[in-house]
């Protein structure tokens, strides 16, 4: 925010900054108070209560954590969760990058159409979209029917109630979260740099691998982090499109709390997930820095 004000105001105002600065850069604290209160009341307090519960329920101690980290069942659920999140992140980047690139360089009018499609898909009810995939992917669904009709397969492929289903469904849902930040970053890359590279004799492949991808990397990292972390805690899509052998952590937590009435173990699982998420975020900050993240690589 401050950056855009400066650049719009121009350098002569920046020079007379002593009087203007307090106005231009107000102390932001009062403005964030409502948000802070909200976060403390509805996030920090309940999370703390859950954490307390995880070490007190059913009896004081670290029993819940020992149970969680010491059992193969839960280890498998953790592994599944990371496997799915990693798969979805890789696929989202692979599919999202070309789309973001295209969006950044295509004429504005066409870009707006693609944008509208992206946003519309994001705004459509999540449950409805997930059910739609269920119908599309099932053995008697249109995709299998088409493949059989075309003679590409003899028997319907199993694409739902397993890892394939979860990965397809979640990648589709996560795509906008990587395309939107990424196209902002790519748009901000000065085309003159690419021209300069071409003039210096770089072919298209070199331009892509040596210029475009490195410059877009902070955007890729920001988007990938978002997708990975969101995927770690995802519930609806894995619950509907996955089978039990690839159960993810959020499902386990819901099951522990809702049907097994084990708040302690559920709390411990939720807390481990939170720690992992924060650790990934810290790593990202370390590697790419907060400023570059939030300003899209500028």
């Amino acid at each position, binding site marked *: 925010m401050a950056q855009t004000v400066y650049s719009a105001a121009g350098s002569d105002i920046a020079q007379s900054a002593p009087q203007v600065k307090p106005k231009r850069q107000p102390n932001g604290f009062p403005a964030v108070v409502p948000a802070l209160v909200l976060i403390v009341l509805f996030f920090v307090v309940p999370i703390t209560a859950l954490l307390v519960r995880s070490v007190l329920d059913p009896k004081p101690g670290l029993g819940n954590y020992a149970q969680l980290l010491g059992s193969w069942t839960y280890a498998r659920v953790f592994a599944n969760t990371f496997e799915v999140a990693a798969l979805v992140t890789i696929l989202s980047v692979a599919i999202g990058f070309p789309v973001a690139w295209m969006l950044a360089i295509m004429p504005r009018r066409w870009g707006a159409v693609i944008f509208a499609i992206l946003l519309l898909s994001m705004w459509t009810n999540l449950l409805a979209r997930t059910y739609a995939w269920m119908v599309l992917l099932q053995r008697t669904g249109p995709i299998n029917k088409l493949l059989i009709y075309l003679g590409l397969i003899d028997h319907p492929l199993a694409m739902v109630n397993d890892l394939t289903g979860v990965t397809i469904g979640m990648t589709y849902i996560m795509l906008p979260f990587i395309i939107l930040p990424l196209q902002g970053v790519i748009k901000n890359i000065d085309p003159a740099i690419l021209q300069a590279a071409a003039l210096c004799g770089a072919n298209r492949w070199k331009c892509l691998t040596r210029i475009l991808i490195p410059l877009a990397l902070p955007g890729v990292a920001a988007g990938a982090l978002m997708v990975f972390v969101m995927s770690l805690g995802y519930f609806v899509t894995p619950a509907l499109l996955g089978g039990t052998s690839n159960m993810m952590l959020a499902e386990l937590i819901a099951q522990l709390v809702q049907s097994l009435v084990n*708040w302690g173990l559920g709390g411990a699982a939720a807390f481990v997930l939170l720690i992992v998420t924060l650790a990934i975020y810290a790593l990202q900050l370390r590697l790419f820095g907060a400023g570059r993240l939030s300003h899209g690589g500028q």
Partner: protein
Amino acid sequence: MRKMIVAAAFAAALALTGAASAEEIVFTSWGGTTQDAQKAAWADAFTKKTGVKVLEDGPTDYGKIKAMVESGNVSWDVVDAEGDYAVQAGGNGMLEKLDFNVIDKSKLDPRFVTPYSVGSFYYSFVIACNADAVNGKCPKTWADLFDTKKFPGKRTFYKWSAPGVIEAALLADGVKPKDLYPLDLDRAFKKLDTIKNDIVWWGTGAQSQQLLASQEAPYGSFWNGRVDLLKRSGVNAVMSWDQNITAADELVVPKGTKHRDLAMKFIALATSAKPQAEMAAAAGYAPINKDSAALMDKSARAMLPEEHTATQVNADMNYWAAHRDEIAKRWYAWQTK
């Protein structure tokens, strides 16, 4: 102006929440067609009779009940819960004892009455098949359903740890119904292992119907009411009642409710003959009041588990209540393997 609107909206919201503590109770169930039927047959009738409004909430969540009871802030007055949970939660001090001076239990099926709960409705796990998917070659027995050579393809079973699937596995393996309990879990899981790769799980009644109708799973184990509804909608579903396994939902009152008396009155009405009959006819489940069947028409009655008692197997709710946690642990560990 905008401030005034906001203030007015706020005041209205306050007034609304204030009103909730007057003459209103909250009934919580599982949503979907079941709760629609319960609302029509019970809640609306209760409001008409007593003037007390019944607010609907859902879905039932045992974690929430525990949190409410422990915090002393109970906002659910009557809850539809699974039978094994009801027995267990009663023993754990989560539930109010029912007042059988208000609720007439003499007419209720004694299989589904405990000091803390009475049946809401009951159902059977039956074997069903989409005849169109398999040219009419449908499994008749649990042994058939576990036979992947004779009946290849996917079969669907109830996903959650609850009475039904383990019993089916043991019956399929040749255990006599009278020898089912205590459940031989090792044997059950060994039998389940033989078909594990061919199982598609259903988590909700609606999902079970979707799987069968779309032929994603041409056969499986279903709640009888759901298959009945599918047949009515035109799906060529074939049902086998052989060794149908009964289980029930129960009505319970979370401990510390502020509307205990009204909750008892609500349950008294909900379990009386006519509301039970109406609910059963609409949802395709069975009434737990012994006088209800006589009030139902012939075609609806033919679909009830009590017309198929010859080979019926009753899931033992007391056994399940006592071993609920232990079975659940093994069940989910086995599922994620």
